[in-house]
């Protein structure tokens, strides 16, 4: 399969606290794959995702997009961010614009699209994310789930090859979540790779093809969802048995 995004032995320490958060993480993402990233609070999921489009720079290790080592400046970084779209954990951090349609259009205009094509694309993703009726609203007058959907639309609009979501479905109602998971599956069939950090084990079990488990900054499991959730040895190793035993048949 076509390798799209590769993290190779990534190490990261936050300078402010000196805390080592990632200790040699390696991860490979192929075209059209649906991957769930799970792990305890503070295990380093958000930090890892910020490396995927060059927001954070590893102190050691390498990140490759389509086999190319990306540089952190100039046209390289622009190309990188165009190909890897990241939806942030808190939608409020992402919405800067005074109204919804304008916020969604931001990335497109940065890519150099004309106003007319951008307008069409905004309408299209708004429909996919169920925010058409909100296009005219100020961003501060939205519910949490609505904000999350607008944030998603803003990233999706840019047609990334890799879509990365940091708990981007957590605030959504079950119906909307179902609809968006369906959308993600469709996108994956079109060849877009999707990596979702989540605390939702049901999602990891049913929607993802592959699950990556992060523990204190290292990958302790990276395998097919079916295998991870069935094999008692893997369950024990990732301590998932402690949380799954309750609803075992």
């Amino acid at each position, binding site marked *: 399969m076509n390798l799209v995004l590769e993290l190779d032995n990534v190490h990261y320490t936050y300078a402010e606290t000196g805390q080592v958060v990632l200790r040699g993480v390696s991860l490979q993402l192929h075209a059209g794959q649906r991957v769930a990233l799970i792990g305890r609070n503070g295990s380093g999921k958000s930090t890892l995702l910020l490396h995927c489009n060059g927001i954070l720079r590893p102190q050691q290790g390498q990140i490759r997009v389509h086999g190319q080592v990306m540089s952190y400046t100039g046209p390289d970084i*622009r190309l990188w961010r165009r190909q890897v779209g990241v939806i942030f954990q808190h939608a409020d951090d992402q919405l800067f*614009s005074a109204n919804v349609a304008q916020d969604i259009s931001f990335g497109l205009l940065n890519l150099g699209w004309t106003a007319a094509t951008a307008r069409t694309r905004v309408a299209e993703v708004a429909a996919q994310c169920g925010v058409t009726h909100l296009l005219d609203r100020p961003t*501060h007058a939205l519910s949490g789930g609505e904000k999350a959907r607008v944030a998603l639309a803003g990233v999706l609009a840019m047609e990334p090859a890799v879509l990365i979501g940091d708990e981007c479905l957590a605030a959504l109602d079950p119906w909307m979540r179902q609809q968006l998971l369906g959308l993600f599956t469709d996108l994956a069939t079109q060849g877009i790779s999707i990596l979702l950090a989540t605390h939702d084990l049901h999602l990891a079990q049913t929607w993802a093809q592959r699950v990556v488990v992060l523990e204190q900054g290292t990958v302790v499991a990276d395998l097919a969802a079916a295998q991870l959730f069935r094999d008692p040895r893997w369950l024990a190793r990732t301590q998932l048995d402690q949380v799954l035993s309750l609803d075992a048949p």
Partner: protein
Amino acid sequence: MALLERYAYASRLRAIDPLQKLGLSGTVLILCLTSPHPAVGGGAFLWMIGLLISIAGVPLRVVVRLLIAQGLFLGLAVIGVAFSVSTSAPPAPFRSVALGPFWISTSPAALAQTLLLLSRAGGSVSALSFLTLTTPMVDLFDGLRRLRVPVLLLDVMQTMYRFIFLLLDTMERMVIAQQSRLGYATWRTSMRSSGIVASRVWLDAYQRSRRMQQALDSRGYAGELRVLPSTYHHSRNLYLLHGGMTLSLLAVWWWQ
């Protein structure tokens, strides 16, 4: 949502080009500030209130309340112009009343000045109210962008506008969280709690601005917050009213 903005979004003039509305209130503003006749300011005031209620469909109640609030400020400000205080009775054109050891006096000239000031300020304030009650900030930013106001200035304005709501939101959540743990039960704890909020809000804003920067970078931010301009239409009726109003105010000026 901010109170006034809510009416701007609901206004019947919402979809009209912000530049047209800006032009209308600009005309009124210039006429009020340049005319030496109080009647022009007064006329402008009546026109603006009339347009707000009949054309824009802003509820009378809202307009009246806004005017009372603005009127209070204005009233306080002009008292000093209309009246003067001295320890002896001033001569002829002044009329005075004694109040204990002081004389409070006024003159026809001072009253005329006050009237002019009131009419100018009243007319200008009503013109600005017309703009704020019919045009949301987003549209205004749009309009200013088309007027080629420097991009940097607009970006700063827009980000500040967004952050005002984020800060208010954060503050509200913090205060509610404190209240639910009895943070405001006594005067002492209230002082302590509000102190904590005051300092935390800024730290929070700082962290948040850093995360917002990361999110902007993720979507290819290159030094300018470019977004799609909204589409508006121009209203012929409003242009006609605009013309009629300008002519009538000029006529008032002329005949004075």
